[in-house]
């Protein structure tokens, strides 16, 4: 145990720079995923047959295949079609597309939970369909989605670990390098596990705090009944 702590402290600065990259990838993936997910959820709820089909196809494809396969397809596969992406771009796109497919489902669930009634009320005031969506449905749907959505940042953080397999210099990649240098893979990966645990704990705490901070009094009780 004492050896491990010594090991851990020795490589901490190096590991932390890897952790920084991990957090960056998470933030980027989350943001891209949110935009994609929201667009897809709207397309699936309010779009015509073409858009709905596209949305469903995207969701099924990215939820039905492993993230690692998606990364490889973008990084190694696309050059076969003449499109070459840098490793950072491939990782970012794969994470964003993957997260977007899952976020689309959470968001669609919340939009549906808000219910027809709110849309009708908006239309009755003379709003167009899209005005109702943006001014009435979405503000409520987004708040309602927070508890379920709060799992996504942690989930995404954990899934960024696989991008080291295309040599993106995040936390896992650092672990691999340290393992090779010290011939002590177990300590190296244990050290990384500790850092992931710390990040997950902090992120989870942050999500719980923001959930509490954004509550509308009486809103959850109403939506719990809905």
């Amino acid at each position, binding site marked *: 145990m004492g050896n491990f702590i010594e090991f851990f402290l020795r490589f901490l600065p190096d590991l932390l720079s890897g952790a920084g990259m991990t957090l960056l990838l998470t933030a980027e993936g989350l943001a891209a995923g949110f935009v994609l997910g929201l667009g897809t959820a709207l397309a699936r709820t309010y779009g015509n047959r073409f858009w709905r089909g596209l949305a469903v196809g995207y969701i099924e494809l990215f939820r039905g295949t492993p993230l690692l396969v998606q990364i490889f*397809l973008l990084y*190694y596969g696309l050059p076969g079609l003449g499109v070459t992406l840098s490793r950072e771009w491939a990782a970012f796109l794969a994470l964003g597309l993957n997260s977007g497919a899952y976020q689309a489902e959470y968001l669609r669930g919340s939009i549906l939970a808000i219910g027809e009634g709110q849309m009708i009320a908006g239309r009755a005031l003379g709003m167009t369909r899209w005005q109702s969506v943006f001014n009435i449905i979405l503000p409520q749907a987004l708040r309602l989605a927070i508890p379920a959505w709060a799992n996504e940042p942690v989930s995404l953080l954990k899934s960024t670990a696989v991008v080291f397999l295309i040599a993106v210099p995040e936390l896992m990649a650092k672990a691999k390098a340290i393992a090779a240098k010290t011939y002590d893979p177990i300590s190296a990966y244990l050290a990384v*596990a500790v850092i992931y645990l710390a990040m997950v704990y902090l992120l989870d705490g942050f999500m719980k705090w923001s959930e509490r901070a954004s509550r509308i009094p009486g809103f959850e009780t109403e939506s719990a009944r809905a």
Partner: protein
Amino acid sequence: MNQFFTYIAQGTFITIAVTLVSLPFGLALGLSLALVYNYGGRWAARAAGAYSLLMRGVPPIVLLFILYFILSGRLLNLSPFWAGSLALGIVSSAYQMEILRGALQSVGGGQMVAARAIGMSRWQAIQHIIVPQAVRLAIPPWSNEASIVLKDSSLVYALGVPEVLRRAQQLSATTQQPFLAFGAAALIYFVLVFLTNRALDWLAEKTKLPTQHT
């Protein structure tokens, strides 16, 4: 072309094999932990809870590597296939524990009281009354976990196990057709996940308890 298909088909068998080892192993371990959590007394429950938090707070691939090096080390000397599959099973057991303990809890205290009232011991009640009902409740979230394990089996690529993705990579090198190779891998996973979901949906339907009032 023919060689392409057989090569990648062999990879598919390995992928299925990895899943068929890790998923049931995860179930056995997860169910035991869930029973310990719900019925094992305060300290055992805390230990099980800590296990769950730790295993779910770390990325599967990190745990895979740690467990792989332990399981294939001098003590046990398991092959990459076995070390990888069992490691994935251990990772999954934490998620399955959460699903199953929720299901056990949903069955409800009343069922336990009724079972004790006819003289069943606690263990008899768990075995004959609680678990059969909990299993039915657990099927929908469990089928989600099953497709996750199937997709996570791709992680054993990193251990050199010749499953679909590694085969695809080798094919991509030999045929110089990377998009085709990796596209095929994606398609195979898609079909496997699809079939697994359908099969488990069918199972959920089949084991549903009849409710209409006659």
